[in-house]
């Protein structure tokens, strides 16, 4: 998308007004997924497999059906049977298979049947009356074991064109890219380090569990209320899985209590609709926390080998990585993204990266902020840190020496446009944190991180009211403060106050299609659409002013919220404020609105650099993060407080991933820690104050220079923390999480 209207001086953008959803949220007035009910509503509950891998021989629901409180029971037979084909329909098949098991239960927690009853308790009780006969099959939950020749096959024929011959059927996608000659590069190095790294699966950990209310009649018309990052994809997927027309299902997104990528698909939504269609009553389904852990997408776990060669002056002469990611019992682990992002911060002549997507008997992985990138950064940045230590080089200087910049050939192929990595590293070097002395027992870690960012299909409408206020309808659920950012961008174009603009996340019947709130795309793409929609409205405002003044429309321009004559020959008229034009718009041509629909394709990539200090207790193995600084290129921070919040959130989630969070599977293939007591996410007392520095290197693909900020912030933390802990403990930590037992074991092994 060509942009000839770049703006660099701002009135509203860059200020920090109060959030528009603040009062609703602090008073409890905001309606989340579970905060809704309907007359005659039933409650749904889902029966889940206790086995990691089992053939479903028979489901006998007769006793449950006979129960007086039970109004409907569904199994796989109640969903549309979408034939498996590659592409979009292939993913619909995978989602259907995940939403309700077909011939086999593929992981502990996989849905096999569901009940709608007159109360939530009755529904859960009725689950116990459903008899399922299983033939238990061998299972595998570890990525490396799932690739070995004797591993049980999860689904024959799931591999695509990319997988080399001779690989296990559980390997379903293969990616290889790079340039130059890595062997020659390694030969040219003064020091080569090759090492292996492991990360465990972690959950996005959103506080709000999945919840929805579905109503679907036998006429194929339905309504769905749900907590989601994308209600159009929920609409499209539910319609496909239930065999109804997309437009006949109206989906409304509730307020969302966190998503982080995990709410970009459907789980219980088609089940609630299928139950409703059978019972002819609305059905509400709310997951328990245990269901969230067992049956919704965690991130992939990873096993990785990285080899990097460095010259004595710090120049990286060659880099190579093999990244194996398991994504549960379905294709989709982002091994390709791990590979493409791993070395992206660096200007390399010789680089090669390989990614594997491997299936195992775990829940279907879902996106989690920059999916795939944090694991690769952990492995790569750990090896760079070790090289710096061995060669006696400063870790920021080495990264600056090798940093990618405008004109660098990226590790994934193309030449970078203007990017801001060097600026983040220079800011890190200049930050007081980097020069601050460390206490005994403390270590410091540095890491860079990269993420692509995304545009995606976007529709926005803006309608002006007679009193001069504006309502803006966007289709991207607000997961990070986007209503505030959209209002600021609209205010900037219209020239009216932020407080006079109300932003609503519209339902699927009210606005054109919108992709999911993912890929750090919302401030970029919905923001660009908001700017364009506001400009569309401004064009009409100028037309009305021109008509009133009796001058050509091209003799009118828009300044500070007013139509003004453009140039000396346009005539001498006082500025005409927006509210003066809208006051009589009904009688001067009708309502004034602005619209924009497109797929913006200029999302700029972004980089960050993190500095972490950590302290390790040698007696207990407990790690404390004592200081943390996030430096990231935001392109242009529309609402800096929200940008800082995104930076801090990425660091906080990264601290959890690095130090404590992990999916623990028993020998039986069952998840051992499916509640927050056993799966430990960081709480406030685990976190230091996380300092932030916003770097602004404008994105050439956005009118205001915006780059997405939501995902890059979780890429560096795993590595930065691991480097800090390794430097504090005096031993290289190669497996996450670095929980106290692992730290103690590493200290012991190190003598």
């Amino acid at each position, binding site marked *: 998308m060509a942009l000839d209207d770049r703006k660099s001086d701002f009135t509203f953008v860059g200020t920090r007004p109060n959030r528009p959803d603040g009062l609703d949220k602090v008073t409890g007035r905001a309606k989340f997924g579970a905060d809704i009910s309907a007359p005659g509503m039933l409650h749904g509950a889902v029966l889940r497999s206790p086995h990691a891998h089992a053939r479903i021989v028979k489901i006998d629901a007769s006793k449950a059906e006979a129960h007086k409180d039970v109004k409907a029971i569904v199994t796989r037979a109640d969903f549309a049977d979408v034939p498996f084909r590659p592409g979009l329909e292939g993913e619909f098949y995978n989602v259907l298979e995940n939403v309700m098991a077909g011939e086999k239960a593929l992981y502990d927690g996989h849905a096999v049947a569901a009940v709608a009853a007159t109360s939530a308790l009755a529904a859960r009780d009725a689950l116990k009356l459903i008899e399922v006969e299983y033939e238990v099959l061998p299972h595998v939950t570890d990525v490396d074991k799932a690739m070995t020749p004797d591993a049980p096959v999860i689904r024959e024929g799931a591999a695509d*064109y990319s997988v080399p011959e001779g690989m296990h059927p559980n390997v379903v996608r293969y990616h290889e890219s790079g340039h130059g000659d890595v062997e020659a590069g390694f030969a040219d190095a003064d020091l080569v380090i090759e090492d292996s790294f492991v990360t465990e699966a972690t959950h996005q950990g959103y506080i709000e569990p999945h919840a929805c209310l579905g109503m679907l009649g036998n006429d194929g018309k339905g309504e769905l209320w749900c907590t989601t990052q994308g209600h159009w994809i929920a609409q499209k997927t539910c319609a496909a899985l239930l065999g109804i027309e997309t437009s006949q299902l109206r989906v409304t997104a509730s307020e969302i209590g966190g998503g982080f990528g995990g709410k970009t698909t459907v789980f219980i939504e088609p089940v609630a609709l299928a139950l409703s269609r059978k019972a002819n009553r609305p059905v509400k389904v709310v997951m328990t926390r245990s269901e969230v852990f067992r049956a919704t997408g965690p991130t992939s776990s990873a096993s990785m080998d990285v080899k990097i060669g460095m010259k004595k002056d710090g120049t990286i002469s060659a880099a190579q990585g093999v990244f194996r990611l398991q994504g549960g019992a379905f294709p989709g682990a982002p091994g390709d993204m791990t590979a493409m992002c791993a070395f992206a911060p660096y200007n390399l002549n010789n680089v090669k990266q390989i990614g594997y997507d491997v299936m195992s008997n775990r829940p279907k992985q879902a996106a989690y902020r920059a999916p795939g990138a944090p694991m690769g950064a952990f492995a790569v940045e750990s090896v760079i840190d070790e090289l710096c230590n061995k060669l006696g080089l400063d870790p920021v200087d080495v990264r600056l020496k090798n940093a990618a910049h405008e004109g660098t050939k990226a590790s994934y*192929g193309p030449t970078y446009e203007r990017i801001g990595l060097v600026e983040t590293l220079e800011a890190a070097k200049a930050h007081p944190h980097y020069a601050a002395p460390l206490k005994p027992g403390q270590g410091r870690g540095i890491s860079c991180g990269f993420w692509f960012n995304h545009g995606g299909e976007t529709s926005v409408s803006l309608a002006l009211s007679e009193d001069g206020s504006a309502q803006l309808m966007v289709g991207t659920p607000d997961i990070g403060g986007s209503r505030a950012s959209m209002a600021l961008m609209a205010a900037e174009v219209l020239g009216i106050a932020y407080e006079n603009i109300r932003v609503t996340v519209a339902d699927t019947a009210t606005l054109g299609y919108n992709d999911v709130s993912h890929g750090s795309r919302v401030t970029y793409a919905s923001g660009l659409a908001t700017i364009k929609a506001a400009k569309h409205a401004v064009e009409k405002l100028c037309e009305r002013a021109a008509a009133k003044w009796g001058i050509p429309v091209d003799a009118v321009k828009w300044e500070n919220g007013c139509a003004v004559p453009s140039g000396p020959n346009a005539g001498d008229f006082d500025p005409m404020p927006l509210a003066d034009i809208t006051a009589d718009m009904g009688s001067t041509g009708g309502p004034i609105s602005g619209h924009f629909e497109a797929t913006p394709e200029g999302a700029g990539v972004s980089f960050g650099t993190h500095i972490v200090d950590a302290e390790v207790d040698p007696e207990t193995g407990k790690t404390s993060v004592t200081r943390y600084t996030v430096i990231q290129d935001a392109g242009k921070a529309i609402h800096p407080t929200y940008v800082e919040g995104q930076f801090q959130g990425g660091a906080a989630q990264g601290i959890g991933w690095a130090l404590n969070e992990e999916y623990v599977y028993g020998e039986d293939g069952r998840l051992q820690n499916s509640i927050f007591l056993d799966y430990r996410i960081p709480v406030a007392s685990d976190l230091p104050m996380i300092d932030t520095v916003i770097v602004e290197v404008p994105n050439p693909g956005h009118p205001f220079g915006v780059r997405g900020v939501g995902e890059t912030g979780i890429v560096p933390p795993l590595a930065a923390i691991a480097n800090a802990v390794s430097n504090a403990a005096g031993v290289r930590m190669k497996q996450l999480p670095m929980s106290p037992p692992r730290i103690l074991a590493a200290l012991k092994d190190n003598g």
Partner: protein
Amino acid sequence: MVEVHLWSGLRSLTGGHHVVEVEAKTTGELLVALVQAHPQLQAPIDAGVSIAINGRVIATGLTEPIPEGSEIYLMQRLRGG
């Protein structure tokens, strides 16, 4: 004519070539021309690709213009969270 750089995993589908020269004015024309040149590229294109034009990643659009002499890279389609 524009040169399209492929990721190395695709070389097995193009007889070892990692650069394919095609006639194309838009991203959509480029994908059609790639398949005409190497029919086996249909599978990765169906699976989802993005196209980088002079470093700007076009995630999905088939109507993006390709200026003469542009640097073109075929990439696996990006996914986000």
